[in-house]
């Protein structure tokens, strides 16, 4: 499987994502610069990493979502390419319109960094197939604007289509209906505020993130 990680100005989990992908796939990961206008053709899986692209100025993820490479990601996602965004990557995917809703300032207005308990909602997705239904996993969160919001109609649709893949056990940021991670209707684009790539090595204090990536490998 060939993987790529996008690097925007002030992405800062790009290396972390690449390390996780290389550990799990056993193959080098391509780092793609934001000014590129197209992804390599043979890519199977793209990660939009965490960080503070463009300093989170204006709105988290807003400026990165308008960069050349994202146009091509939108195009390729339309053709079924598997895309995942973590933290700032999730914000970018919503800003780019690949995922519904928006991420606003945490309820208590403070940055929050801590290991977070998540409940897996749907194990029939290509991102969660290796988890057992309703199981609890721990991924670290680290964000300032992780408060997920969407209108009721959108939320009901998300839930009806089982697009909500993870919910928080102890909501750290005010996200509506405790939503931590969602996928698009066609099931190939996923975003979440927590960091699975920070839970793949015993020194991270847990390896619950491994099965997330293994699920994707299996699906491809």
């Amino acid at each position, binding site marked *: 499987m060939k993987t790529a990680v996008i690097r925007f*100005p002030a992405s800062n989990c790009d290396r972390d994502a690449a390390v996780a992908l290389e550990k799990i796939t056993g193959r080098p990961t391509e780092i793609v610069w934001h000014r590129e206008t197209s992804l390599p053709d043979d890519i199977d899986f793209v990660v939009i990493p965490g960080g*503070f692209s463009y300093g989170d100025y204006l709105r988290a993820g807003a400026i990165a979502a308008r960069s050349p490479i994202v146009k091509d990601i939108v195009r390729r996602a339309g053709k079924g390419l598997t895309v995942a965004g973590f933290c700032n990557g999730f914000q970018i995917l919503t800003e780019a319109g690949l995922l519904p809703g928006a991420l606003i300032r945490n309820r208590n207005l403070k940055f929050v960094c801590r290991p977070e308990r998540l409940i897996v909602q749907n194990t029939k997705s290509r991102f969660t197939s290796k988890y057992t239904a309703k199981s609890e996993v721990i991924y*670290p969160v*680290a964000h300032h604007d992780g408060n997920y919001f969407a209108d009721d109609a959108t939320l009901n649709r998300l839930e009806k289509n089982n697009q909500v893949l993870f919910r928080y056990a102890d909501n750290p940021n005010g996200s509506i209906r405790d939503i931590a991670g969602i996928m698009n209707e066609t099931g190939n684009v996923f975003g979440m505020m927590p960091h699975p*790539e920070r839970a793949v090595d015993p020194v991270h204090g847990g390896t619950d993130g491994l099965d997330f990536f293994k699920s994707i490998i299996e699906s491809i």
Partner: protein
Amino acid sequence: MAKNKSEITPEVVAEHGLSTQEYQIILDRLGRKPNINELGIFSVMWSEHCSYKSSRRHLAKFLTKGTRVIQGPGENAGVIDIDDGDAIIFKMESHNHPSYIEPYQGAATGVGGIMRDVFTMGARPIALMNALRFGEPTHWKTKQLVNGVVAGIAGYGNCVGVPTVGGETNFHKGYNGNILVNAMCVGLARTDNVFYSAAKGVGNPIFYVGSKTGRDGIHGATMASAEFDDDSEEKRPTVQVGDPFTEKLLIEACLELMATDAIIAIQDMGAAGLTSSSIEMADKGGVGIALNLDKVPQREDNMTAYEMMLSESQERMLMVIQPGKEQLAFDVFQKWELDVAQIGKTTDTGRLVLKHHGKKVCDIPIAPLADDAPNYDRPHSKAPARDIIKSKDVFETQDYNDALVKIITSPNIASKRWIWEQYDRHVMTDTVDSSQSGGDAAIVRIHGSNKAVAITTDCTPRYVEADPYEGGKQVVAETWRNLTCVGADPIAITDCLNFGNPERPEIMGQFVGAIEGMNEACHAFDYPVVSGNVSLYNETNGQAIPPTPAVGGVGLIQKIDHMATLSGAKEGDTLILIGETSGWLGASIYLSEIQSSEDGAPPPVDLEVEKLNGNYVRSLIRNRRVHAVHDCSDGGLAITACEMAFSSNIGVHLDAAKNIPTHGWLFGEDQARYLLAVEEHSVNPIVSTAKGKGIAAQVIGKVGGERISAEGAFDVSLNGLRDKHESWLPELMNSTVKDAAE
């Protein structure tokens, strides 16, 4: 504003913080009156902040050499060798005054500044620490300062993507009008690719990179050297705004260019911006520098030469580029969307020559700025030694449960989770242990390897206040102990010496005493000082802060599977205490919290015993003989045991005191002590080996259950006590402190 007055009157000279003697030296060296630009340059270079005029001769006493030291004090940061061609580059710095005036931006730019000191030398920053000192929790300004400072550190460090892995936080009325914000950065480089600031060659291009220059922080350097008074609110406009986004781009761009051979010398623009950076580079390299200020990227219209030279706009670097590599440099910096310009050349004149609008606006010899910089031997006096207080003479509480709760919820002991949960501790995914465990030292893996660095910051100002010399020894000893607790070999330290007005003999006495005590410990442990920073004039209306020589220690863990933390204690483990307990309550937390007294001599530090005990504990960790380790510091054995219980999430029981008063046994702060949680079968070998080495080691309790208890003293539930420990700071921060200024 002085810059508009071309006439150099005595008032203008005074406004620039120069004494008449200092001004006379300038006249002699120039053989003429300086113009306003030249005066401004001398004034910042000779400010306390840049010239260390009160401290230089005392700092010179420090042990600065060691087998692993690649670069000691004198460069942007210290460099140590951690084998395999890896080097660790680190420094700690204060941003006290700016943080008091504008907590968010002051703290943020403090973090940005210390990171630049580290990546300037070719290192990728891998960890941040912060040592914070605030006023009384009940003081009307404290909450707002804590809020702003913590948000500022988080806002900057999190955005740049460097984990903030640890620190310390004290509250004391002595900081009501003058908080301390000390930030430490640790970076990783290759020993064969470390960069220095000495300019070389003649006619080599000088590049300016980073943000445009604005009118930010003009005279910040002189301000950081001026005592506070109530109208210092007036000094507000000098506060700079940080831009972590640009800092992140600057790190990536500099590291990218450093991978080529384009850079001859590089220096960040910190205090006194373009002035100190260009002069330091020229002075170290023994060359001259000619700059064309019209080329300096400017954010604002019609800036004067004076403003450009003294501006402290953030996120800027100065470098000497290899001739022929100019285009390469331009390409890299433009790729990262940074402002870049060639603003001058190195020369063979030994002078700093500045042109602006085609006119020569400054032409001064560089050597005198350094060589003739004032170097004072300020009078210093020693405070009389304090009486030693015997524990039998200290009031003994009749309610140990209550005393334990009082102490565990006291400002300096209570959990600082509210602070460190705002810091990204995991980015870069090499954090092995951080604030999260409440541990003694943070542990950060060297990327792609199986080794790690351990990092800690410590200072116990109440000990230094009580006895600067013993207190100075204790500060260094505690960092050494904290590194030992995780199984690291302590290697070297950086320091941030925060004191009051050095023109007062009693303050200077604290300063000299602390340095001599610290230095004795450095020698005993072969634990050199490789970088540091001095912050003087920390006073408000003549009230000095408690003497606060904060120290940041760094150690090496050869194999991350041979380390320890305080979170590994298991059901059925035995608790062993290493080190003698006399029940020392002088200058202790027990005394301040239960008796509201700060009296007494501080616990003495026997450096030979420290070494003996520490080396033994480290060997036990290396041999995997212990489940958990924590040293005894603030609050003594009882608090150490509680912190281990919280972190391991299991109860502890402590045996009764043997022939010392119970309060001294539980809360005494004798030094050189470690609490170990070990398996049953390891107990005898550990204790008997210790005896053989002449090390005090005794079984003092057990691990297990869900209660925290001490024979004949307290017995409380683990969870109940943990909740109290955790809730003190959140409750303070959510309370509404009435604005007393009304």
